[in-house]
């Protein structure tokens, strides 16, 4: 899968998992922070995203510090998925 295609898929999955009913994939910029500013996600959302990575890509994040770096923005998430996905 091409990176651009994977980015779109991840955005769609984030919208679905977090029930962001008013957000469209094109509203999420690749380099925009997912937490705090930008999408304004919080700690419960981070658990939802970790579950998303496990269910959809077979990636299990054990270290919370590592999780924070991976979930910085769409670019960091997709780069990690491309490198570590098992499905």
């Amino acid at each position: 899968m091409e990176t651009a295609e994977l980015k779109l898929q991840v955005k769609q999955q984030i919208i679905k998992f977090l029930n962001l009913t008013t957000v469209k994939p094109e509203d999420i910029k690749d380099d925009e922070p997912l937490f705090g500013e930008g999408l304004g996600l919080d700690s419960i959302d981070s658990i939802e995203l970790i579950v998303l990575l496990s269910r959809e890509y077979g990636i299990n994040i054990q270290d919370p510090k590592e999780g924070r770096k991976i979930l910085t923005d769409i670019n960091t998430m997709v780069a990690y998925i491309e490198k570590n996905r098992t499905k």
Partner: protein
Amino acid sequence: MVYFHESVCISPQKSFPDMDLSEVRESENNLLDVIEPNYPGIPAGAKRRMGKSVRMAVGAALPLLEKYPLPDGIIIATANGGMEDCIKFLNQILEYKEGLLTPANFVQSTSNAAAGQIAMVTKNHQYNTTHVHRGLAFENALMDVVMLIEENKDAGYLLGSTDEISPYNYNIDRLAGWYANEYIANRNLYHSKAKGTIAGEGTFMVWVNGEAQGASARLVAIKTLHGEDVSSLQETLKRFLSENISSGQMPDILITGENGDERQQPYFDAVESTMDARVTVARFKHLSGEYCTASSFALWLSIQIIQSGTLPAVLIKKRGSSNASRQILIYNNYRGLQHSFMLVSAP
């Protein structure tokens, strides 16, 4: 004395922010789902996680708590809580073999999520309780408030109810025979002669305290009864009336939870036959559908009727000789087993 002040209702009909029953909204596929407002007061981050019943409850509570910001307690009735989130969570457990589960569906599915969310959004740390006694959940919540006000004369409480239609649970109840298999339009509900009824949902919130000043209505008495015996029901009603209404008097209006299910009709007939020709008989399930806390919709209607002095024509089954609308008896039963009487009067 327990007095009802301002109230808010989100229902399948036009009830929020004000009641307008000039047109009856029709049911679809034996379901009467609520007309949801936009809930501008609920923070966006919280709203997207909320299931319908929680969203309705918080959305109805916030306008009241703007006016009464410091309740001494939040008392909510819900038989099923966030049923749809509960089903989603159970399905996740199966799908992912009890493995990695997300927290939101679980958090929102618990029965006390509505009362908890209202408290969190308004930063209220007072008494917070949820009553879950199926078809008597709302009546038990109301009795809780009655006892609280007896102990704390100057206190004020947010009392409410919320229940949602979950498609999955609706199908289970339909297969069990509680909802009709054949199509029934709500306008024909009482002529259906079917086994089963139509499903509904809704939220009701009211500010309750012991002050008559500014009140919309007063709770005279409440009585609940478990059982299937029609004669026991009738005896209980006669005793209830003799204890709470002057000898020889009757309430002006009887509002019943008649729901078109022929199996439950004997209970409604027994209650109706206890009234005399002065009493106007009304019913409401063609507006709300059947759900566990539907009696709270009848209480909301009663408060509106007493306040306005007008009984909407769409509710009337049989007009009595009394034109007054100062005292209303509500009778509801859930599945022919859980019965309640609430007597409400002008303050």
